[in-house]
């Protein structure tokens, strides 16, 4: 019986072979890239297709000047990878970076500059922005510093949840914005730890997936400026500008100043999973924080500019992202980089999926042209580690490529359905000529996703970008003056209607209409086939005062106001009951598109359309009234009928109801024209309708009925 192998004791090569700059070193291991803790030391590995030499630069934590510079001996290089194991490093107290020397013959596509210290693109933690909003020292020669980390964590058996897509209800939130406001009442506001304290709220609301706006390390001070008119400091609050792709943002961690952000984020994921809530990350691989020709040199630019960025024939940066540069996603090197990053988050952090910002860029070739079969997207679709991960594309970019419905998908990718948002918004405000398109959106957009299935459609009416729900019914136009760009930023096509007054009003009739319109939106969203996504705060009618592009505000404008949970209890109750209703009715969330057949044999088509008269929908362009009947099984497997009527006309209408099978009666679940608490019932306890033949639907109102057997009293 021999003892178990102890790699740290038994490896012949865990000893130094030589010294560099006074440090014990040996030729490193080429893989994995990045810095890895190994027996007795740290293995550093970095590649560059054209560099001629690389020096490892070590800092003592927080010191302005390096403590040592270790040129990696050329004999340590294999291919274009420099790797070196350095022994006896204080892994906690060290920050590291690289100087990379370009070839003597300068290529106009390269931007090597060995006077700059580069961060490790594979670094798993960064220091430099450890505490949110702490003014950085602009004279720092190395502002975003790579750190060494252990990656072990006590997961206590946690696994990604693998909730079937049909059952998902996504909730998009900003980690800091969600709990930063003092009204959140959490112990550590604005942090991962603070977010944990709000898990019970989310569970009660009924969502089972949170989509976190960017949590990869970014710099809130990027483009930070003072608004000349208000004197307010503006930040990069949203974080769509990545510095460190493998590192959770330290400034979102209550423990960031202790370098514990990885543990804190892992604990967040673990706690979400315990509550049955998946975690999806909003990731930004279309560009980096290095910006255009005038931007800072952080890593890629000085390491291998021509490999990592899409360049014009003249060597300038293509700008399909609208932010200065475009990551060259379909180069083999970058593809591998992105894949290893996603695998890392899926396996090391147990995240359940990703939403890809401006994902159309991920399908462009090195010259910017859209590819037929983009290698990166194909690789992600078939990657063995990512098999259970949601892959959600924001299927457009700032270069004019709009691929909603046509994103290269391999029957694997889903999409933020921008057409759903636009159509439903137009319908809600009462536009003409929308009714046919609306019907298509309600059944999961088969025109776009027939081959992929309804769950490829992530349905949303609002997201972080654009008006939130309360503003969608309170403003005709954006009001972005506080962004300091004279209201020129942000989208102009909001498809919004203020219900009679722009912004705040005391007019009770307008206020009632607004509440009704918000409820109408939630009725449509939560009875649509596909995966619904709710924007954080919409369930309590949070306002951003008409700002439809609040990316730069770290203030009450973007922070969740938790007083609204009490103030707008009516709205919160309506939304959570709607979510519960969706859960109780599997017919509303099947993977296939209903098409008028009767797959469960209940005697009714899986979807049918109705108008003033049952079975006679009005598809004319002037139509502002449509009713959808969905038939199938309820959660117990019994036959079940759901009837959703949406009236965007300014007059009431009386609708004839389709007949039900013997022994079944129509019950009223929701009526947005009714005063609370009659506006919505508890699923399963809906009152029976007195008149089984018809129902009155109020002006700009919706009604939801459920047909089921009368419960024996």
């Amino acid at each position: 019986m021999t003892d178990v192998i102890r790699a740290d004791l038994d490896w012949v090569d865990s000893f130094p072979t030589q010294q560099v700059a006074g440090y014990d070193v040996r030729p490193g291991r080429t893989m994995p890239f990045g810095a890895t803790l190994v027996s007795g030391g740290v293995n550093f590995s970095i590649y560059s297709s054209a560099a001629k030499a690389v020096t490892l630069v070590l800092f003592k934590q927080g010191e302005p000047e390096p403590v040592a510079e270790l040129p990696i001996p050329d004999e340590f290089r294999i291919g274009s990878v420099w790797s070196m194991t350095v022994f006896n490093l204080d892994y906690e107290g060290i920050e590291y970076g690289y100087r990379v020397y370009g070839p003597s013959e300068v290529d106009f596509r390269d931007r090597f500059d060995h006077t700059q210290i580069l961060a490790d693109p594979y670094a798993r933690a960064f220091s430099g922005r450890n505490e949110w909003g702490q003014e950085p020292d602009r004279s720092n020669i190395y502002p975003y510093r790579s750190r060494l980390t252990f990656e072990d964590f006590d997961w206590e058996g946690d696994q990604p949840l693998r909730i079937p897509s049909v059952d998902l209800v996504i909730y998009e939130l900003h980690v800091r914005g969600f709990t930063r406001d003092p009204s959140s009442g959490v112990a550590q506001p604005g942090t991962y730890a603070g977010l944990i304290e709000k898990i019970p709220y989310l569970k009660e609301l009924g969502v089972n997936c949170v989509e976190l706006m960017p949590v990869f390390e970014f710099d809130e001070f990027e483009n930070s400026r003072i608004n000349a008119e208000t004197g307010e400091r503006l930040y990069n609050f949203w974080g769509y500008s990545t510095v460190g792709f493998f590192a959770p943002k330290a400034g979102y961690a209550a423990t960031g100043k202790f370098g514990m952000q990885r543990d804190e984020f892992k604990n967040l994921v673990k706690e979400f999973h315990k509550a049955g809530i998946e975690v999806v990350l909003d990731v930004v691989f279309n560009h980096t924080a290095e910006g255009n020709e005038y931007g800072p040199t952080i890593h890629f630019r000085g390491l291998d500019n021509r490999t990592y960025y899409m360049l014009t024939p003249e060597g300038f940066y293509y700008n399909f992202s609208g932010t200065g540069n475009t990551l060259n996603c379909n180069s083999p090197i970058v593809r591998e980089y992105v894949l290893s990053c996603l695998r890392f988050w899926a396996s090391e952090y147990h995240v359940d999926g990703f939403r890809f910002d401006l994902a159309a860029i991920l399908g462009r070739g090195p010259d910017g042209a859209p590819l037929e079969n983009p290698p990166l997207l194909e690789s992600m679709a078939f990657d063995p580690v990512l098999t259970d991960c949601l892959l959600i594309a924001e299927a457009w970019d700032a270069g004019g490529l709009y691929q909603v419905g046509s994103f290269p998908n391999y029957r694997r990718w889903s999409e933020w359905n921008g057409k759903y948002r636009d159509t439903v918004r137009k319908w809600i405000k009462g536009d003409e000529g929308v009714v046919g398109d609306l019907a298509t959106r309600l059944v999961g957009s088969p025109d776009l996703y027939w081959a992929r299935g309804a769950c490829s459609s992530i349905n949303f009416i609002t997201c972080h970008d654009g008006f939130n729900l309360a503003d969608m019914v309170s403003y005709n136009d954006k009001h972005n003056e506080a962004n300091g760009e004279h209201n020129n930023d942000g989208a102009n096509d909001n498809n919004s209607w203020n219900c009679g007054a722009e912004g705040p009003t005391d007019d009770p009739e307008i206020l009632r209409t607004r509440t009704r319109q918000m409820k109408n939106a939630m009725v449509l969203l939560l009875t649509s086939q596909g995966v619904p996504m709710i924007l954080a705060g919409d369930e309590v009618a949070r306002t951003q005062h008409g700002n439809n592009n609040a990316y730069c505000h770290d203030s009450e404008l973007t922070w969740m106001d938790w007083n609204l949970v009490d103030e707008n209890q009516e709205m919160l109750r309506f939304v959570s009951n709607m979510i519960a209703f969706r859960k109780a009715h599997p017919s509303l969330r099947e993977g296939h598109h209903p098409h008028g057949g009767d797959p469960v044999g209940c005697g009714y088509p899986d979807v049918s359309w109705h108008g003033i008269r049952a079975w006679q929908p009005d598809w004319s362009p002037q139509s502002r009234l449509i009713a959808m009947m969905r038939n199938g099984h309820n959660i117990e497997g019994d036959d079940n009928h759901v009837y959703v009527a949406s009236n965007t006309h300014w007059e009431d209408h009386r609708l004839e109801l389709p007949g039900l099978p013997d022994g079944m009666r129509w019950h009223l679940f929701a009526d947005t024209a009714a005063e609370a608490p009659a506006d919505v019932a508890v699923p399963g306890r809906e009152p029976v309708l007195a008149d089984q033949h018809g129902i009155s639907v109020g002006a700009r109102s919706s009604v939801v009925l459920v047909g089921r057997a009368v419960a024996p009293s």
Partner: protein
Amino acid sequence: MDIKQSRSDDILVLKLIGDLDGRTAPAAQAQILEVLPSDERVLLDLSELGVVTSAGLRTMLLVYRQAQARNSTVGLVGLSQELHGILSATGFLTFFVVSDTVDDGLSELADVPAQRSGVR
């Protein structure tokens, strides 16, 4: 880092004095693991702990894991507010029986039933 060892009834008390960081953690860890008993209760008295870094926290987690594998329970007393905040934010606090004073810790540990095994 100095570790003082004492015993109160059947509970081992280890008092950690000084800083617990990347420099001192490996030795402290080795020392603690060497005396870590099986099927018992251990109280770490942190009231005279100086600076604690992530390496120090790792040591505490490793002690917890090892204790669990040996069917022992670990209690903590004398946590600074800061350390309490870190352990709370990272979820590590739930691994330990946490008390204010050594006396409280001893009585709370005494109430803990024989530990489950850490091996699932």
